[in-house]
């Protein structure tokens, strides 16, 4: 058991399990910083996953598949923007509606294209490749962790750098933060907060799309209904724990990824009902959010 947790395999698998959560968390981060809650990250990932894997299959190109997934993520985000910002509905309720829509839409796309409802394993995608650097990858422990990973692993690191630079050092970042913190003040200096929110949602959509693509084009090479399995929501929880900082958010995503993997991997080393093990990531999410709420409450009282 201890050996299992401290194995190289556990570390590598945790990172792999963490990747979709990281993208979901970054998606949540950028929209939350702009003050618009997007709880449809789960749904966006799902629709992006199915579209990405199918395009990859039919075009024989993982690049086109990945770009499609990102574009579909943006489209899903724009649907929320349309509802919440243009038609002025409640963003939370619209998010719930879009999630429900996405569940059906992803299966609908699958059925419309392949005529099946369960999964697209009959039309396997061209997988997103690994970047493997000779020599460096042979360094013990960190070699495989840092120099022998899926393209999306490096994209995630670039995304974290991008986000922290965006928020700290750019005009758009300043506008996003101000819109989230105090929209009235932002408006008073002539910032159109709705436009800022749309921009944030577009970035949010790209991340959600990448998260979906990882699941159906890297982790597996096909889409299966329900494969996002709450990772969009877990990402939102990880973001909440990260308190708006990209690096902290990435760290908590990694933690959630480890628990996620543990719930699967431990089944081989533990004599414990796997149904219960499978609940771990979700229990952890609840526990994390409770801790987060308590910390926040104490902060406010101080």
């Amino acid at each position, binding site marked *: 058991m201890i050996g299992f947790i401290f194995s190289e395999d556990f570390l590598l698998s945790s990172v792999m399990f963490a990747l979709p959560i990281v993208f979901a968390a970054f998606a949540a981060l950028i929209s939350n910083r702009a003050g618009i809650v997007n709880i449809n990250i789960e749904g966006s990932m799902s629709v992006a996953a199915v579209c990405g894997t199918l395009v990859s299959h039919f075009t024989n190109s993982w690049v086109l598949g990945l770009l499609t997934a990102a574009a579909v993520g943006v489209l899903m985000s724009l649907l929320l923007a349309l509802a919440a910002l243009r038609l002025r509905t409640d963003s939370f309720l619209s998010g719930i509606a879009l999630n429900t829509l996405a569940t059906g839409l992803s299966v609908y796309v699958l059925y419309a294209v392949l005529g099946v409802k369960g999964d697209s394993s009959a039309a396997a995608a061209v997988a997103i490749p690994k970047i493997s650097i000779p020599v460096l990858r042979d360094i013990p422990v960190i070699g495989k962790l840092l120099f022998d990973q899926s393209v999306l692993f490096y994209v995630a690191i670039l995304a974290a750098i991008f986000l922290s630079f965006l928020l700290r050092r*750019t005009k758009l970042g300043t506008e996003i933060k*101000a819109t989230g*913190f105090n929209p009235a*003040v932002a408006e008073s*200096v*002539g910032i159109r907060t709705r436009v800022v929110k749309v921009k944030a949602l577009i970035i949010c959509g790209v991340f959600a799309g990448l998260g979906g693509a990882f699941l159906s084009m890297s982790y597996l090479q096909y889409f299966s209904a329900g494969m996002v399995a709450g990772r969009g929501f877990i990402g939102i929880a990880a973001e909440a724990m990260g308190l708006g900082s990209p690096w902290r958010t990435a760290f908590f995503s990694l933690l959630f990824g480890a628990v996620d993997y543990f719930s699967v991997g431990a089944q081989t080393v533990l004599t414990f009902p796997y149904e219960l093990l499978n609940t771990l990531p979700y229990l952890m999410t609840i526990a994390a959010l409770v801790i987060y709420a308590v910390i926040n409450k104490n902060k406010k009282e*101080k």
Partner: protein
Amino acid sequence: MSGYIEMRGITKVYPSGVVANKNVNLSIEKGEIHAIAGENGAGKSTIMKVLYGAEKADGEIFLDGRKVSINSPRAAGALGIGMVYQHFMLVGQFTAWENIFFGIEEKNALGVLKKKEMIRRAEELCEKYDMHVDLTARAADVSASTAQKIEILTVLARGAQLLILDEPTAVLTPQETEQLFGQLRLLKKSGYTIIIITHKLKEIMALCDRVTIMRQGENVGVYNISDVSEAEISRLMVGRDVQMKVDKEKAQPGEALLTVTDLTVRGKGGRNAVSGVSFSAHRGEILCIAGVEGNGQREVVRSVCGLNRKYTGEIRFGGVNVAGMKIRKIRKLGLSHIPEDRMTTGCNTAASICDNLIALDYAENSRLGFLKTKKLRERSCGQIADYGIKGTLNQKIGMLSGGNMQKVVVARELDSDPALIVADQPTRGVDIGAIETIHKRIVAMRDAGKAVILVSADLAEVFSLADRIIVFHDGEITADITDVSSVDEVQLGRYMLGLERMEVQHG
């Protein structure tokens, strides 16, 4: 007539039908400090918001003789007009320099910020106008006077030539006010034009060159300060002679009704908001808690009134320890509380005047769950007449002006037959006429043998009402003044800033 700013025939009618400005003409000369004086609801803020583009109205505006249309604050900014609101428009999580350059950031072609450049320019501004602020402090962490300086710098950084300040001294101590006036005079010397909205007569006399007086949405006169007296201005503002000084006999303090012993309340960041404070409030006496906002007064009031239960020390009310008691129970003991913020805790803005008036005792005035409507409505009608509330029984209280809303709160709290009245900023943002009413009522309560605790940041109010003053600074009592006539505003200010400390006798 060709002033710097000419506003002609400005008429503003709000959708609710309230006429805020009636055919107002206003003329501002370049390089003057001009006061817009008037009671609350006189339309002085409205006319300034029209000039700043935050409100649309009928009429014409001329700048340097040229007709301009100002549709938004942005347009006003482009014409060199900037406004500092009473409620600061700062992003609390941003630093001072980030706020100063917010929206006008220096950046390269890629949108990357030039941080060093901006800090350097901010420092230059501070230096030039003698406003020293810590540019890297977060706006949420600085004092009100610093926040105000940041606001002024923000407006200056945008190249404003005309500064409009809305009640700028409401949150300042006498010393800070003096400092602000010094800075404003410096700005005037540098060629800026300044308009301040205020109802504080002393400040108009001390700072301004001219005053425009407004009443009920109309301009009732423009005067050179040298040609007019305080009394005249106040008469024009109210439309009748106002008694500026509250008539009251010497207090006849009775037994101690509320005793607070060694009260400590934890505050932000683990520091004590209130540390080891002891005092008592006596029947027949108005005890005034003075201090710059945020020095522990709020926490003391919240603890006494049962809104905060996390404290150490003891609070006894009529001999009963109130620790852990529910608010309703403490109120049953005879507490009434006029909260500092009428909009959030003082009343339910979505409910009617009548509903707000009966909020304390509707339960006692009902049978089998049904309200004794007739009785309650009759009583409420009486209160509306009694306190001169301009409104009707079923009108939503949120529609009333600040002064009238406050009168509703005061009526409810004072008519509940209390033994102790905690009045927290009872006249903040209330016009002179209503202040007079509220002050008279408070003194009448004292004369009827009630204990009164008055929390006020307004020194004029402190001096006209208090029988005894305790001054708070940084969670401690720096002075306990039993002979109010023995101190002046300057001395009180020194206690408020913690520059000086009186030997405090407890009890």
